[in-house]
Every structure is written in structure tokens, then in C-alpha cells.
């Protein structure tokens, strides 16, 4: 029982990370119908940026919560810009070409970030500085809730609430929803589709960066290929929730994190990474539109 609770806490923390990444997939898929393969690598860049910022700004030697907040937000800003840049250079010129073209450049960008990352950051794992010292907040029997777990979950929740506010209550959010609904109609209505798509990439990438920076606190080993598997898993989470659906991405991420942790704990840790694949196959077989997605029909 204790172990189950403990695993649930771990699973939720991982789930929150997946959810943040999954939101970016879902947003981009919503506006461009593109699986942004590079998204997992933006998450890696987020972790790397946080690492370097923490060192440059001196927070690595003098940890503080303020320091963490500064590192987190700066990393989000940098990756937001990176996301917009990727869209501008690699996706925008291909928007009217067959969708396959964009998918191929997305893979190219992903590999460029991974292997360029190995050149720039070095291929070996780095150790993320302890910006916030890990303490146990709560202990009942063998169950421990650390401040880091709580922080990861709370920051993720906070960001999701902000996102929800932006999407539902602001003009740009309305525009994002309109573009997701229909490209042509939106531009006829005077929405600047290019701006909306850029904003989508900025927000999605910033969320991934936040996930990257926070993952450094829990699992300090970071390296240039760290984004590959979480990227795939977060995508599966988005599909599970119903791609294009925001609450779906969050639920999908949490389900993914918890399932994976439980499988690793009770079954076999080597097959931890296989969980995502099995979930994907099952979803595609049983409910391809995902838990909350609607079946969409192409207009003929």
C-alpha cells in the first residue's frame, strides 16, 4: 500500500512533465496538423538552457527558490524563441506542400537539435545543479512526498491554468482556436494566421522548456538525447487524450506517467519504455480519436 502511494506520487510527477510536453504537441497539431518531431528536443534544450543559466547566473553555487524561478522563466523564454524560429525556418515555407514534407523537415530539425546538441553541449551527461534542496515535506510510513515532487506538480498545474486562461479568455487564444478550426476561414476573418502559428510554437516550446528545467531537479542527469523518449511518450499521451484536445493532453500525460511508473515498479523496469508503445497501439485499435477527441471528418 505504501509502495503504491509512493509510486503514484512519482507517477504523477512524471505525468505532469509529460503533460506539459504533450500540450505542445497538441497545440501544434491543432493548428498545423503536424507531428512536431522536434518538440521532445526542445524539451532537452530547455533542460540544457536551465543548466547553463544556473551556472552563469551563479545559482548553481548559491541555490535559492528565486534563482530557480529566474532560471525556469529564462529558459522558457529562450525556448519559446527557438520554437518560433524552427517554425519560421523549417515549417512555414512548406505549409502549402504535401504534409509529408513538413514531417521530414521536422525529423531533420529533431536530429539537428540532438546531434548539434552533442557537439555544442558535449555528448556526456551533465549533472543538473541542485537549485532547490530536496526535503521531505510529508512522511507517512514509507511514503515520502518531497518538496521537489510538489513543486513539479504545482508549477505544472500553474502553467496549465495560465494556458487555459490564455486559450479561453484572451484574443490570441480565441485566434488559436479559430485557426485550429479552419485555416482559410480564420484568414478570411482577418486573423493573421502566421502570427497565431508563431504564438502557438512559442507557448508550446515554453511549456516544454519548463518541463525540461523541472526534470533537472528530479533527475539531474541531462544529456542531448534525453528528449527522444519523453518526446515519443508525450506524443502518445496527446493521442491518448485526443490529439488537439488540451484537457486530453493533461489527462493523457498523467495516465502515461502513472502507468509507466507502476509498470516499472511492479512488473519490470526494463519494459518501462514499452508501456507507451502498448498504450499507443491499444488507443489506435480501440479508440483512435482518443479519450476526449472527436472523430473529425475531412471535408470532401
Amino acid at each position, binding site marked *: 500500500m505504501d509502495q503504491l502511494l509512493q509510486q503514484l506520487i512519482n507517477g504523477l510527477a512524471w505525468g505532469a512533465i509529460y503533460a506539459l510536453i504533450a500540450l505542445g504537441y497538441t497545440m501544434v497539431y491543432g493548428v498545423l496538423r503536424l*507531428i512536431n518531431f522536434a518538440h521532445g528536443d526542445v524539451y532537452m534544450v530547455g533542460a540544457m538552457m536551465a543548466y547553463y543559466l544556473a551556472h552563469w547566473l551563479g545559482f548553481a553555487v548559491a541555490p535559492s527558490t528565486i534563482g530557480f524561478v529566474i532560471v525556469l522563466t529564462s529558459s522558457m523564454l529562450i525556448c519559446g524563441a527557438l520554437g518560433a524560429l524552427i517554425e519560421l525556418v523549417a515549417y512555414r515555407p512548406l505549409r502549402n506542400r504535401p504534409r*509529408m514534407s513538413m*514531417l521530414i523537415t521536422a525529423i531533420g530539425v529533431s536530429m539537428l537539435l540532438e546531434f548539434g546538441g552533442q557537439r555544442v553541449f558535449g555528448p556526456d551527461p551533465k549533472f543538473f545543479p541542485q537549485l532547490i534542496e530536496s526535503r521531505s515535506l510529508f512522511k507517512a510510513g514509507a511514503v515520502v512526498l518531497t518538496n521537489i515532487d510538489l513543486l513539479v506538480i504545482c508549477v505544472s498545474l500553474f502553467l496549465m491554468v495560465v494556458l487555459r486562461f490564455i486559450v479561453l479568455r484572451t484574443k490570441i487564444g480565441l485566434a488559436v482556436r479559430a485557426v485550429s478550426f479552419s485555416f482559410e476561414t480564420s484568414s478570411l476573418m482577418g486573423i493573421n494566421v502566421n502570427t497565431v502559428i508563431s504564438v502557438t510554437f512559442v507557448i508550446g516550446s515554453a511549456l516544454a522548456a519548463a518541463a525540461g528545467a523541472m526534470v533537472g531537479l528530479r533527475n539531474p542527469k541531462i544529456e542531448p538525447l534525453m528528449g527522444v523518449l519523453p518526446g515519443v511518450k508525450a506524443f502518445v499521451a496527446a493521442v491518448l487524450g485526443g490529439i488537439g484536445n488540451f484537457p486530453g493532453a493533461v489527462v493523457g500525460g498523467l495516465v502515461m506517467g502513472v502507468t509507466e511508473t507502476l509498470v516499472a515498479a511492479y512488473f519490470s523496469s526494463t519494459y518501462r519504455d514499452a508501456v507507451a508503445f502498448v498504450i499507443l497501439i491499444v488507443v*489506435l*485499435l480501440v479508440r483512435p480519436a482518443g479519450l476526449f477527441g472527436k472523430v473529425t471528418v475531412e471535408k470532401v
Partner: protein
Amino acid sequence: MELLKRNAVPLLLVAAQWPVGWLLSQTVNSYYLQIIVYIGINAMLAVSLNLINGITGQFSLGHAGFMAVGAYVSAACSLFLVNGWPAALALPAILLAGGLAAALAGLVVGLPTLRLRGDYLAITTLGFGEIIRVVILNTAAVGGARGLGGMPPLSDFASVYACTIVCVLVIWRLVHSPLGKAFTAVREDEIAAAAMGIDTTRYKITAFVLGAFWAGVAGALFAHFIGYIHTNSFTFLKSVEVVVMVVLGGMGSISGAIIAAAVLTVLTEALRFLADYRMIIYSVLLIVMMLTRPGGLLGRHEITQWRFWSSRTAR
């Protein structure tokens, strides 16, 4: 008899690989011979992936995974099953075993995915490739993380090139036959193809399974050429390498895929001193190609604009 006469050229071509192989082994040093063999294997991979990605318009990122299945199953076969058979029997047996195992894996991955939109296949096959690696790494019977060695050197220049020729011929004749035109139709417009009575899912699965089969054969040939295999030879990067070949050659062009396979294999060797930058070069190549020459080197055209199906040859 009639069959032999109608297929004399391909048959002679296949048979000619043995004397050519002998000649090469007498004249070319083993390093170059190895590169030449790799060209054959990569051409087989590129042409079979081209059937899936270029001609049928799906997007598989799992070719290395199918290659791994073929390599490991065939290796297990030759080590444990057909051990001691004469090479002339053992070779076809392990090639078939590797190919069929990969085809079966392709069916398992393809059935749930190919009913849906093409881009889901990309992520499913990517996941599949990773899972296969995890499974192999954790299976002690095939060596796990140590890799698997000791396979007899059943394949050589002649068998690799004979298989490559057969692979190219089968795929070429398939997609240029009246029935096979539907593969291209699926790529061009799935809804229109369905409205013409084409069972699009079936065509997609056929392409995918056949592509996986040849990737498995390529894996089997590879395993029995170098005699030692490790999952590191079948990572996601290998899949991407094959995708780069298909893109470079022009999505849908069979001859383009072969040329691109040769060019990239040679370049990879020639640029060995740039090894650290190889993947960076590949990725930039992919992006720049898509932005500037999305049709690839040859576009959708074949190097010969010869049509097997046309009034000329039908008579």
C-alpha cells in the same frame, strides 16, 4: 520454358553475380568489397522503404527495427536451427526466416496503425524500433547487450547482389503493373482511391509488410556478412539514414533510391574523418533538400522513363 524465356535477362543478371563476385574477390581489396556489399544492402533497404514512403505515401521510421528483426531471427536460425546445413540450403532458409519474421512484425505494427492517418505510422514505427531494441537487449538467448556473434559467413557479394536485384525487380514489377498502380493512387489521393473501389488499407498494409520483408532480408544478409550483430547497428539513426536515401533519391523513384543509397554509402565511408558530424550533415541535408528540392534528385521519375506496362511491352 516460356517463363524462362520471358525472364531471361533478370535471370542472367542474377546468375552473373557469382562470376562477378569471384572476379571482385580476386581484384578488389576486402575493404572496398565490404563497401560494395554495403551499397547492395542499403539499396535493398532504400528501395523497400521507398515502396512504403515514396510510392504508397506512408511514413515509416522503423526500417532499422525490421532490419534488426531479420538480422536476429536469421542469426538465431543459423546458430540453432540450420546449423550444419550446406550453405546452398541454409542461406535461402535464413533469408526467408529473417524476411518472414520482419514481415510478421510489420503486420503487427501496420494493422492497427495503417487504418488511420499516415503520420501516426511515423511515431508508431519509431516506437517499434525502440521497443525491438529494448527487447533484444534484454533477451539473453540472443546475446543481450553483448551482441550476437558466431554466425557462419553465409552471405557474400553474390548473394547480396542477387537478392538486391530480385528485390528491385519484384517491387518494380509490382508498382508498374496495372494492379500496382493503386499503390501510387493511395499516395496521390486516398479518398479518391477509395471512391474508385480501392481497398486503401489493404494496399497500405501490403506495401508496409512487403517493405518490412525486404528490410528483414537485408538484415539477414548483413548479419551473415559481418558475422556479429549488436543493437547499435539498428538504432533510430539507421532508420533515418534510409529515409535520407529515399528523400535524396526522390520520393517514389526506385532508381533514385538505388543511386542515393550508393552515393550515401560511399560518402559515409569517404567522410569517416567527419564521423562526429555525420548525423548533423544528414539532418541539414534533410532540411535543405525539403526546402529547396523537395522532389529529390530524380523527383518522381525513373532514370529510364521506360514503362513496363505500356503498349510497347504489353504485346
